[in-house]
């Protein structure tokens, strides 16, 4: 639940940042790259290559945008290869005198398009493509004989410009993401606390009711004894005492605020047995991990069978750690435990101890 609501909030922030990148890239491509291409057609070494490169950038940008906004990322490298190839085509087509002008548009525009394609990838992938761009453009500068300090300085400025804004936008988007996720998580945590509090209050109410019922029943036994109506030697009366004592003990032993589903199931079995007059002790130690329903059923089912066949008394013990749960019952009764359908990682062990039966189910995290 936490991850779900956090996802809803962060998605809204992410979507805005994505729209910003897409809008900037489209505006840049139409308002800057297109006039630069058309206005210099007669001066490029191969005008066709530059027009083709403009079309490739446009197509890759469009496909990348569709993938990004529909959250269906496809393989990035073919698109990157196309972009880098188109980048190289424009660099090769620009004559030396146009090299550091708007006419040589591709290496400056590349950053926004790569950002669209690599939105969901780590920043280092983005930086790697920019490094390739920087290498290609440096090669072009040197090939055109522009190895002097001024040209290298200009080159560095353009390279810086290809990534700085994009990185700032991405970093801002991620900071917003993190803040939004944290806000959503604390809201969810608060909701979980509220739910737990409500469950605890409900449990408290139910226990109060049980206590009143046990108190009335135990009180009746004690009153019978005190007023001489009951004979302490009477087996029937002794049995009533034992039963009420065990019900009280079980109530006291329930220290959990929010009941674990496995304990809840076992207590229900114990209650059923108790209604037949069977004395059941139920003790639990450790923290029970969240278990799949099938595992929980496999752990509880043999115990339920034993408790259903118990004659007079049973002790149920539950022990949990992060990776194991052992549920056991020692009871007097005659029952052949039918091992349940093999659930992931649950083993059943039975040991007959001369009239008393010891059955244990144990789960280990696989």
């Amino acid at each position, binding site marked *: 639940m936490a991850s779900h609501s956090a996802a809803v909030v962060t998605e809204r922030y992410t979507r805005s940042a994505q729209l910003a990148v897409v809008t900037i890239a489209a505006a840049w491509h139409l308002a800057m790259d297109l006039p630069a291409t058309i206005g210099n057609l007669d001066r490029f070494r191969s005008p066709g290559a530059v027009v083709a490169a403009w079309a490739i950038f446009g197509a890759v940008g469009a496909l990348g945008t569709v993938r990004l906004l529909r959250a269906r990322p496809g393989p990035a490298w073919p698109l990157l290869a196309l972009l880098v190839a188109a980048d190289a085509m424009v660099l090769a087509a620009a004559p030396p005198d146009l090299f550091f002008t708007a006419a040589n548009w591709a290496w400056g525009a590349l950053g926004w398009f790569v950002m669209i394609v690599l939105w969901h990838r780590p920043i280092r992938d983005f930086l790697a493509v920019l490094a390739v761009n920087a290498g290609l453009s440096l090669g072009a500068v040197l090939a055109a004989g522009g190895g002097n300090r001024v040209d290298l300085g200009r080159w560095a400025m353009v390279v810086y410009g290809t990534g700085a804004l994009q990185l700032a936008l991405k970093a801002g988007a991620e900071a917003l993401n993190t803040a939004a996720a944290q806000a959503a998580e604390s809201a969810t945590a608060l909701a979980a606390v509220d739910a737990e509090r409500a469950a605890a209050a409900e449990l408290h109410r139910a226990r109060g009711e049980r206590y009143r019922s046990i108190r009335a029943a135990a009180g009746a036994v004690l009153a019978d004894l005190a007023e001489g109506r009951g004979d302490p030697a009477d087996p029937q009366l002794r049995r009533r005492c034992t039963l009420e004592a065990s019900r009280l*003990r079980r109530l*006291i*032993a329930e*220290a959990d605020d929010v009941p674990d589903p496995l304990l809840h199931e076992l207590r229900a079995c114990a209650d059923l047995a108790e209604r037949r007059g069977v004395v059941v*002790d139920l*003790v639990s*130690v*450790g*923290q029970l991990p969240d278990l799949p329903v099938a595992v929980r059923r496999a752990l509880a089912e043999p115990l339920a069978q034993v408790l259903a066949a118990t004659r007079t008394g049973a*002790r149920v*013990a539950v*022990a*949990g*750690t992060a990776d194991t749960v*052992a549920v*056991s019952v*020692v009871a007097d009764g005659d029952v052949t435990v039918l091992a349940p359908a093999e659930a992931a990682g649950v083993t059943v*062990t039975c*040991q007959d*101890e001369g009239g*008393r039966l*010891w059955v*244990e189910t144990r789960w280990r995290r696989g």
Partner: protein
Amino acid sequence: MGGDAVASRVRVGIVDDHPVVVEGVRSWLSGDDRLEVVAAGDDVDAVVAAGVDVLLLDLNLHGRLVLDRIADLSAAGQRIVVYSQHTEPEVVLAVVDSGAVAYLSKDEGREHCVSTVVAAAADRPYVAPTLAGAFIGDRRNQRPLLSDKEREALLLWFQSMNKASVARRMGISEHTVKQYVDRARVKYARIGRPAPTKAALLARAIEDRLVRADEIGEYRSHAAG
């Protein structure tokens, strides 16, 4: 000590604020001629003043958990066996950390009371199933590292009816089961606040060759290791 059988009996004190419980415990102990109840009542100081080898103490006295008294008396060397209706590991472990030598839940009394008091008087460990369960359920960082066999013996003992059953399940002797369980108890004497009662338990464990002296320093806690 003298050769007189009566003089060498273990002097036991019982503290509980319910007279009927005091009588019940007294009747459990009276069947064993190694033990002698010399004082009982609801006032800890009065019972301790009678000079007892082992104090059987109800954890909940007059509506209050008397953990602080357990710590004080243990620090003064008084061996205390605590019994209570509480079975939550946190409570049981807090009692053991305070220096009590053993812990019994009230429904374990009949079966384990005499053995526990006899063991306590000799500074030997006695782990009733509730205490075994508390060790298994221990999630604190400073809990000692137990071996797999020790954990298994504690778990089965916590679940089971007797050590013979545990021995059969583990395919080892009853004596070895007791050793595993007792070794776990001795490891717990190394953590929490130091007390003469814990030191006595460790010293006796070495004497009995339950642990070796050089092992004692090696017991790492979970936090350390």
